[in-house]
């Protein structure tokens, strides 16, 4: 009972910091804009060149809503995501980034508004860079990052394990399993759409952005292929154009193998991902293999028939241990 009360009040404090602070930061931006609305320069100087002279402007009615929304989205969305991340270290990184970036953007917005106070008569180039505000914002990024990381709870959302297919491997026998994963259909549609828009751009408007778009689409389409090889040598994952991306865990370094349900959001989305504690190759939602290794981050890869692949790796692993 006591521990329950303690943990729930600790949980409340955490929620106040993780969700309350971004909301407070966003409110501060709005309050500053309203309080200073009388003597703000119009349009606001919102960008400064390298020599610290202003060189870009935005209307206050665009700047304030956009910045406020950014503060809220970055702060709350990333905090919300931490529970879906299956690794504590990765969750802390996401949580820290969320709070830090949220406070950073809010401080930048307030500093920018402050620089525009009473600057109605100044030309764009004469409005000085709010250097002190920038430093404060950087400080908040650091502090917010550390506090946000520290306040992130252990993720409770564990991925669903699927179990492995038991496989028999005789001593001296080599069993090699290979599998692939087909990407989600919408990614192919996306790639196809990019090619279409790219070709239209190329022909009708400007060749260079068109070519770039087609190139990116081709890169995307080739990265969607993933091929997994499991055997007495461990696990090898190949993806990318012509399979240039190659991830490998030698059998001797394998400490655990699971087949599991992969949620792309838990790894920050689709593609080749590097998070603290895990490397992931995710081309779709659904079954995949997770390999824990003794000398580095876990490896997670989406692949069809993952139970069997995991079973083969496990069988080789047990043969070595025997």
């Amino acid at each position, binding site marked *: 009972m006591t521990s329950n009360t303690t943990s729930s009040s600790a949980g409340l404090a955490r929620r106040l910091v993780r969700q309350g602070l971004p909301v407070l930061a966003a409110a501060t931006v709005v309050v500053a804009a309203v309080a200073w609305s009388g003597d703000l320069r119009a349009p606001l100087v919102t960008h400064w060149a390298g020599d610290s002279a202003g060189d870009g402007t935005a209307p206050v009615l665009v700047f304030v809503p956009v910045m406020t929304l950014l503060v809220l989205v970055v702060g709350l969305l990333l905090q919300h995501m931490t529970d879906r991340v299956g690794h504590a270290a990765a969750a802390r990184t996401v949580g820290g980034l969320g709070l830090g970036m949220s406070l950073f953007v809010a401080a930048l917005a307030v500093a920018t508004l402050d620089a525009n106070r009473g600057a109605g008569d100044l030309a764009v180039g004469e409005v000085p860079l709010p250097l002190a505000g920038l430093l404060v914002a950087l400080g908040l990024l650091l502090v917010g990052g550390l506090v946000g990381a520290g306040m992130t709870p252990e993720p409770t959302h564990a991925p669903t394990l699927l179990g492995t297919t038991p496989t028999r491997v*005789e*001593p*001296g*026998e*080599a*069993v*090699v*399993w*290979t*599998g692939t994963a087909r990407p989600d259909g919408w990614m192919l549609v996306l790639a196809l759409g990019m090619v279409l828009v790219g070709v239209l751009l190329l022909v009708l408007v400007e060749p260079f952005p068109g070519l770039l778009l087609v190139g990116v689409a081709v890169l995307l389409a080739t990265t969607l292929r993933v*091929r997994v*090889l*499991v*055997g*007495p*040598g*461990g696990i*090898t994952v*190949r993806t990318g154009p*012509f*399979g240039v991306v190659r991830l*490998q865990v030698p059998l001797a370094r394998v400490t655990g193998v699971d087949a599991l349900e992969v949620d792309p959001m838990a790894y920050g989305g689709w593609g080749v991902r590097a998070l603290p504690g895990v490397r992931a190759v995710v081309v779709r939602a659904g079954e995949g293999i997770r390999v824990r290794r003794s000398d580095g981050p876990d490896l997670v890869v989406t692949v069809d028939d993952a139970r*069997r692949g995991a079973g*083969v790796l496990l069988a080789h692993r047990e043969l070595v241990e025997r």
Partner: protein
Amino acid sequence: MLLRLTPDDSAPLHERIASAVRAAIAAGEVGPGERLPATRDLADQLDVNVNTVLRAYRDLRDEGLLELRRGRGATVVGDVDDARLLGHVDRLLAEAARMGLSTDHLLDLVRERAR
């Protein structure tokens, strides 16, 4: 797809790899149009030279089970029946060799039975 390389035997490595692929095709583990692992990756897994795997793939291509193309790797073209029949032939040849029977003699026997 599952490849099983038996621990036994006196057969050279490339032949064992080829018969493992043949068996996988015969079992329907891998079908026409599907790709086999890159030679380098399979060689790494089995801890053998890349050329050994390449030789196995080439033998299978000569049997009409695979298609080899530069940059695209090995694609299965033969079907379950092709692979099964070739597997039977392999076993027949191995049995004949064990009995000290010459290939010519074996072929005579096959012709005899086919009549």
